[in-house]
């Protein structure tokens, strides 16, 4: 129990004292989650929108597949990505294993179903009459689509926040694909895993607190955007 208190105190010490290892892990976490969140949103929002907005044969199958992939265990994703990125694998020559970029690929696979499913649901949940109202107002097809997406913005933002949460707190993929290399691919979460394995529970709690500080900052920013986007 005392390691929890010890951890809280250590967290303050690590942050205030600008501990290099901690900040290296912070940087790695931000780099990896920034890259993967960007990719997830750039791919997920347009595709999720299309999935919810348009009718096409096999739509239900695709929806089911997307929602099933929400349950993919992270270690399995990590293993599959490793298989592809390993030197023996098909993408081995890209040299992405044990790099931040490689980790970002794995984490994008994790976050994509979340954004796809939530965006698609949000768009599907829009009022039917919205489309007709926009058309009667003289909007063309593209304007209708963009306006519909804008109407769904709060749910889409929640999808982004959920994906961010999942990505930033992930361990299995980061370990398997990143290798937890100090100064390079050691993120806060993999550092926590290492410290707990070493029995340094206080250090583990401390790093966990640091991660929550980051998450808090990101969510405060998201809240700011949400207020600005209010009609």
């Amino acid at each position, binding site marked *: 129990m005392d390691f929890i208190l010890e951890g809280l105190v250590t967290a303050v010490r690590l942050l205030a004292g600008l501990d290099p290892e901690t900040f290296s892990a912070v940087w790695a976490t931000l780099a990896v989650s920034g890259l993967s969140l960007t990719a997830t949103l750039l791919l997920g929002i347009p595709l999720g929108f299309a999935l919810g907005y348009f009718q096409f044969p096999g739509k239900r199958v695709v929806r089911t597949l997307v929602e099933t992939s929400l349950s993919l265990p992270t270690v399995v994703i990590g293993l599959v990505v490793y298989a592809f990125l390993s030197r023996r694998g098909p993408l081995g020559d890209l040299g992405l294993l044990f790099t931040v970029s490689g980790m970002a690929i794995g984490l994008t696979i994790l976050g994509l179903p979340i954004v796809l499913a939530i965006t698609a649901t949000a768009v599907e949940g829009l009022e039917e009459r919205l489309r007709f109202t926009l058309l009667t107002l003289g909007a063309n097809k593209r304007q209708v689509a963009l306006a519909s997406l804008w109407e769904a913005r709060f749910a889409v933002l929640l999808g982004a926040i959920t994906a961010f949460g999942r990505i930033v707190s992930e361990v299995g993929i980061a370990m398997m694909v990143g290798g937890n290399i100090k100064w*390079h691919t050691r993120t806060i979460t993999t550092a926590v895993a290492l410290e707990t394995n070493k029995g340094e529970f206080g250090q583990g709690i401390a790093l966990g607190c640091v991660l929550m500080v980051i998450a808090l900052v990101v969510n405060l920013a998201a809240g700011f955007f949400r207020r600005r986007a209010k009609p």
Partner: protein
Amino acid sequence: MSAKRLVLALALTLAMACPALAADTLMMATTTSTQDSGLLDYMAPIFLKATGIELKWVAVGTGKALEHGKNCDVDVLMVHAPKAEKELIDSGALVDRRQFMYNDFVLVGPAGDPAGVKGKTAAEALKLISEKKAPFVSRGDDSGTHKAEQGLWKAVDLPLPDKESWYISAGQGMMATLAMAGERGGYCLVDRGTYISYEAKAKGKPALVILVEGDKKLANQYSVMMANPEKCPKVKKDLAKKFLDYWVSPEAQKAIADYKLEGKQLFFPNAGK
């Protein structure tokens, strides 16, 4: 002090953003014991100064480390599973193996020692544990320690007790396995380095104490080797050779002997012996 740390933190941030500026780098797969004991953190800057090579490593179980070597994911390995290593050398997956240091395993257990193994040889101890059905916690994760433990059961002609009720296969790292053994009042095979760390953390009241040590069968040999350049064309051959030559050099051997954890020497250099 604070300004210096800020500069260091910023410098590291920039350094991570500019990988092209780094010195020659070499990728190594190693086991958790070399990392968790602090040896690699201690040796890496010494290695950099001596060779100009930045050593990057992934610390995983020995089984996984050997897989990484086979799959050409890394350039070099530092592991402690001689039998498994020799198999891969024979099959040509790995080459140029050099033994360079050893430490030992110890058998730990509750101070009460229900199976009465204190002071016995490793073989006798395992026999007693098996007969008395005393709880035994295993790493169960194909690590060097796990392989050594399995070797011990075989050495005393006992079948691997996987299915026995008193045998607990933890499937976790060394510290977690020790914690489990402490909770269950069980016996456990552990490398001395991790035990020293465990003992220090327990602040003088460890749940487990050393009961069997010094047996020849408990010696734990570490070796370095490289991925086969013929099978792994991308391997950094020249840097790997420098790496292998370094660990058996007198300079490295002395540095290893100088490394102490909680004031005790952890690893014993034995290159060329």
